[in-house]
């Protein structure tokens, strides 16, 4: 029995990259949702939640149409010599879209939990809006933001339906842990599938452990 190492590497790398890409826009959007009133807010909230509600395959199909060479995003990227569909970038795109709601929703709840009074007092002490955000709001919301990032990472690792449509299942190129397990089962390679399931469980434990370490109280 052999482990599908390329699939493990791709899954890990793409999931980390997807979360990294999501973090800044996700937290910024969460802040806008938590602290500002603006027209179209309800619509944006719904659109952000869609990947949670739609069958992943449906999200994948939409992405395939948008990111394909004739799609409205894909044609533009193709002109710049960037192809997403059926490449590792497609894996990252599928994972990023599927995990974005976890980043936004967790960060939003965390930001809503930060006392407006505390931010206001920081402002009366002379702090600019940026300084308030960096020294007060984000540190106080960091538990929720980290929790959201970990959930997003876990969701990205487990992603199957959207990935297989956008990136396909090309061994050594776009095959992830999930799609590799699927192939192994189809081919009757049960031991290989079991081994990859073991790897998935180990990664889940590692992700939880890392988040616990990140959240450990630092003493002043």
């Amino acid at each position, binding site marked *: 029995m052999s482990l599908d190492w390329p699939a493990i590497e791709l899954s890990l790398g793409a999931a980390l990259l997807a979360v990294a890409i999501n973090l800044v826009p996700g937290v910024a959007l969460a802040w806008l949702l938590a602290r500002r009133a603006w027209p179209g807010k309800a619509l944006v909230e719904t659109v952000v939640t869609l990947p949670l509600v739609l069958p992943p395959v449906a999200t994948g199909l939409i992405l395939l149409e948008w990111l394909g060479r004739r799609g409205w995003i894909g044609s533009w990227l193709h002109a710049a010599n960037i192809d997403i569909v059926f490449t590792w970038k497609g894996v990252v795109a599928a994972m990023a879209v599927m995990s974005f709601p976890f980043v936004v929703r967790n960060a939003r709840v965390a930001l809503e939990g930060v*006392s407006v*009074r*505390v931010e*206001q*007092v*920081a*402002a*009366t*002490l*002379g*702090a*600019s809006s940026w300084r308030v955000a960096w*020294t*007060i709001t984000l*540190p*106080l919301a960091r538990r929720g933001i980290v929790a959201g990032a970990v959930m997003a990472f876990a969701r990205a690792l487990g992603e199957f339906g959207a990935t297989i449509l956008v990136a396909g299942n090309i061994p050594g190129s776009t095959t992830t842990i999930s799609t590799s397990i699927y192939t192994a089962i189809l081919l009757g390679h049960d031991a290989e599938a079991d081994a990859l399931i073991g790897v998935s469980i180990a990664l889940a434990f590692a992700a939880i452990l890392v988040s616990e370490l990140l959240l450990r109280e630092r003493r*002043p």
Partner: protein
Amino acid sequence: MTPFLELRGVTVRLGRFVLEIAANFDGGWTALFGPSGAGKTTLLEIVAGLRRPDTGRVTMDGRVLNDGAGRGQVPPQRRGIGYVPQDLALFPHLSVRANLDYGRPPGDDDAFFGTVVERLEIGGLLAQRPGALSGGEKQRVAVARALLARPALLLLDEPLTGLDAALRERILPFLQRVRDEFRVPTLYVTHNADEVMALCGRVVVMEAGRVRAEGATRDLFVPREAPGWRLR
């Protein structure tokens, strides 16, 4: 003499509550006295720049902070007004030391820091987090943090409300010490007449969003039959 802080035709509507204020404050300690719901905290928020009035003009020491014309609202970080809300709003994730340092001007001298810490007797708390402090300690740290930002005006929102009688008796001398030694003009919100008499020379009496009376505390309050004071 022009007043230190002047509010002219300041109005703000919050649902069915309407605040309508014209008042002058001199450079000493002035009490904002009245029942809850009178609009005292709302008034502090307007002065601090945390709430924009619908109309009216706020000037401090000749500087226009709010101009009803719409433009000309100085943001809180550029007002130089210290605000200690009723819930204190200490930064829970920072040490007492970092809380105190937060608003200090760059290059502020350590002598002043030392004086504030010593006079409020919080030197032993610097390494702690706010969560580990008692109610009275938190109170002193919050006042010290505001003072260390070198404010031109201090806003204290019911600092003694919610503390038990014994603790109030212990904190009051600290506030008197702050008043006498640092001499920062202060608006002191309270609904307790004894606090007004213990701390403030002047008082603005508020009720239902309006100023009902203003003047020297000695003119507006008389002793109760029992020890203490009540509104005339």
